[in-house]
């Protein structure tokens, strides 16, 4: 059992940034036995992916291995020539990337891509590989396993594609698989499928695996042992159960305690003043693809309404329809009792000012060629005619409000971290002195600890400024933390809505139930229990 498959000693990796080499990984030791699953966890920049890829003897462009040894089953991988490494990769070590959609070649059928590696390496003939593929698709519970391989990557869903990728990684029955955030880009409901598939396949073939993620609740379902990393250093390493029960380091404890933030229920604004009323709203793309149907929704002043649903449920489209980016085909949006023009182009400056948006990806929501002075200052100048020293003073006030140093005013936006960027987006929205802020998945792209800070900030601002929030998210943990009311959406329709406690209290609509039960819990047996209960139910 305890036969070692991978031994890494004192691994040091540097990356090239700002015209100089900077350390990314500072002397990490790693041991992995056959059939063992090791979880690598940490926030972005922890070096977890870099270590995972280094186990294959590979470095991303702009990185270099400067020290240490990588011993894979008796072979010193870091000393091999690239031809020799190629013999090992794909056959004995394989890799599953975060975005299956970006990793498959869109021009080839799934089964051809499955067979490519074994045929290339001369392990199997195409027919054998194809037969294996069908068996593997069946193992991974893909629908219609005999024929699904004939499809192209865009013809299957995201979760199915990710499973097809796991199948592909298994094509040569490798000794080691590196999973690099394979479920991060998926909805909770889809994540379950993929997690179950990975767990099953790893156990069945007794494959060793390195599972890289930032979500502790996910990794405890799979890993035997967990390494917590931060800034390229090892924080803590021990058995999964041990880490859950007795975390030694503060940082690990913080990771475990994540999602404990809860809005004070007493902050719920009583006395209902309807601020936004949406009546019988329909919207469609390109004329005939209906994305929203029969939406009726009232948002009370001072409250936080969470709109929940998986991708494709139309929740972001609802925000676009409200802001006028996608004029609705039918129905009305009323704001403070008066109807808003359908398109943002016809709305007055003041109407635009009162409804602000914050986006999922702060990277693309901030112009990389602007300094914070302009990003935050522009709404001040645009709406309130401020300029010069007065404007700078207000920008600094806003920076203080979002807990950033005031000297950041001269920084360009790419010089900030992800969490700081999201704070700047919040400040930009606040600069307009809005009444409503629409938050579209504002925490999804952030590390969990950072996300929690953002939620706390938003909650504080709501209390101070009497803000109304519309919170669009697929993450139920966020909803539980911050919402006053919940609206559940499925395929463009609202299936359930009401005050948070009412929606979260059983009995649920069956879709709400599915969403709720799919949120991973910090319990190694959660996945098994869930799958069991779902199996008995059906």
């Amino acid at each position, binding site marked *: 059992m305890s036969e070692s498959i991978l031994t890494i000693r004192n691994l040091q990796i540097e990356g090239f940034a*700002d015209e100089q080499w900077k350390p990314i990984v500072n002397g990490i030791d790693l041991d992995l036995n056959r059939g063992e699953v090791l979880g690598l966890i940490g926030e972005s920049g922890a070096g977890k992916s870099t270590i995972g890829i280094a186990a294959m003897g590979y470095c991303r462009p702009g990185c270099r291995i400067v020290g240490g040894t990588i011993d894979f089953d008796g072979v010193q991988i870091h000393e091999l020539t690239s031809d020799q490494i190629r013999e090992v990769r794909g056959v004995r070590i394989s890799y599953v990337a975060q975005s299956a959609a970006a990793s498959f070649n869109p021009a080839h059928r799934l089964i051809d891509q499955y067979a490519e590696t074994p045929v290339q390496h001369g392990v199997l003939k195409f027919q054998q590989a194809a037969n294996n593929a069908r068996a593997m698709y069946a193992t991974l519970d893909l629908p219609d396993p005999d024929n699904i391989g004939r499809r192209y990557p865009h013809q299957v869903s995201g979760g199915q594609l990710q499973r097809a990728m796991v199948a592909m990684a298994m094509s040569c029955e490798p000794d080691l698989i590196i999973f690099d955030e394979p479920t991060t880009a998926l909805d909770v409901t889809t994540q379950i499928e993929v997690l179950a598939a990975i767990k099953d396949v790893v156990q069945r073939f007794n494959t060793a695996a390195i599972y890289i993620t930032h979500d502790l609740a996910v990794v405890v379902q799979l890993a035997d042992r967990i390494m917590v990393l931060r800034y390229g250093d090892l924080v803590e390493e021990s058995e999964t159960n041990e880490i859950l029960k007795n975390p030694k380091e503060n940082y690990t404890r913080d990771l475990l305690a994540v999602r404990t933030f809860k809005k004070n229920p007493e902050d719920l604004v009583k006395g209902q003043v309807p601020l936004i009323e949406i009546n019988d709203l329909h919207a469609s793309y390109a004329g005939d693809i209906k994305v929203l149907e029969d939406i009726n929704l009232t948002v009370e002043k001072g409250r936080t309404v969470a709109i929940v649903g998986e991708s494709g449920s139309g929740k972001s489209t609802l925000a676009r329809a409200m802001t006028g980016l996608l004029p609705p085909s039918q129905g009305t949006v009323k704001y403070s009792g008066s109807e808003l023009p359908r398109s943002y182009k016809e709305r007055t400056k003041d109407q635009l000012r009162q409804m602000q948006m914050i986006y999922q990806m702060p990277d693309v929501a901030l112009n990389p060629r602007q300094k914070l002075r302009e990003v935050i200052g522009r709404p001040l100048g*645009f709406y309130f005619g401020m300029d010069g020293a007065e404007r700078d003073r207000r920008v600094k006030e806003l920076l203080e409000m979002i807990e950033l140093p005031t000297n950041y005013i001269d920084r360009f936006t790419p010089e900030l971290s992800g969490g700081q960027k999201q704070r700047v987006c919040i400040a*930009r929205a606040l600069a307009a002195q809005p009444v409503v802020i629409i938050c579209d998945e504002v925490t999804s792209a952030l590390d969990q600890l950072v996300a929690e800070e953002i939620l706390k900030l938003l909650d504080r601002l709501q209390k101070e400024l009497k803000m109304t929030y519309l919170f669009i998210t697929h993450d139920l943990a966020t909803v539980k933390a911050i919402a006053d009311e919940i609206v559940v959406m499925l395929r463009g329709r609202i299936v359930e809505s009401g005050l948070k406690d009412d929606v979260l209290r059983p009995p649920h609509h069956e879709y709400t139930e599915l969403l709720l039960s799919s949120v991973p819990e910090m319990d190694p047996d959660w996945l098994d229990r869930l799958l069991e209960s779902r199996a008995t139910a059906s």
Partner: protein
Amino acid sequence: MRFWLSLKRAGLPAHIGIVIILLFAFAAVFAPWLAPYGESEVVDAVPWATPEESGTLLGLDQLGRDLYSRVLYGARNTIALAMGITILAFFMGMTAGFFAAVVGRWVDLLLSRIVDIIMAFPTLFFALIALSIFGTSIPVLVFVIATLDATRVYRIARALAMDINVMEYVEVARLRGEGLWWIMRREILPNTLTPLLAEFGLRFCFVFLFISSLSFLGIGIQPPAADWGAMVRENGVAITYGIFTPLVPAAAIAILTIAVNLVVDWFLRKTAGLREEY
């Protein structure tokens, strides 16, 4: 600071390119002081006198004018004109390209088809027609070449702007109620500047070569003003007598073109985010 660092690391080819461009620019700016003779001053009645015969650096041309002085003045005319034309072409092309990308729909369709029509004609052919209709004067030359090059710039500017236009920060600006001009100038322009600058270098070369070829055909810069392309044409016959005179302006054209391209290559590599292995 960061700029100087990346300049330092640009590599030998880019450094060579930069030094050559600076030399040419220096020559162009200070031509009247550097040149021993005037632009069209006849030094000696002997055509194509060798340096030894005439006591000049590079000898004389077909009318007995000092070649070295002519090359310096030629740098002035050709480079200044090429620069002016490229700037005008970029101004027109970028404005139209950004406008088409941001507004979209029929505006985009209309502008793009107009550009297609202009591009359908071979450039030299188009320039010949335009110049023979409007006559050969500097303003007409500038405007015709700039229009032709603006079509190429339009294509690139539009494609770049389309990518930026779907970014959420542009959406934020729209939802704020910003006008078209502000979106084009403050949101889109800064984010397309680097690739466009690289293109500027390339375009400058093309314009410069184009002026030279028009002058060579006799419809570019008119004599007696010195221009490298015209100088090659006027002295072309000399090559049959084994006289190197026409090769001097030709070499000037080639060297500047190569130098600009060396710098542009470095620029493009930087923008593309490609990095050699260290």
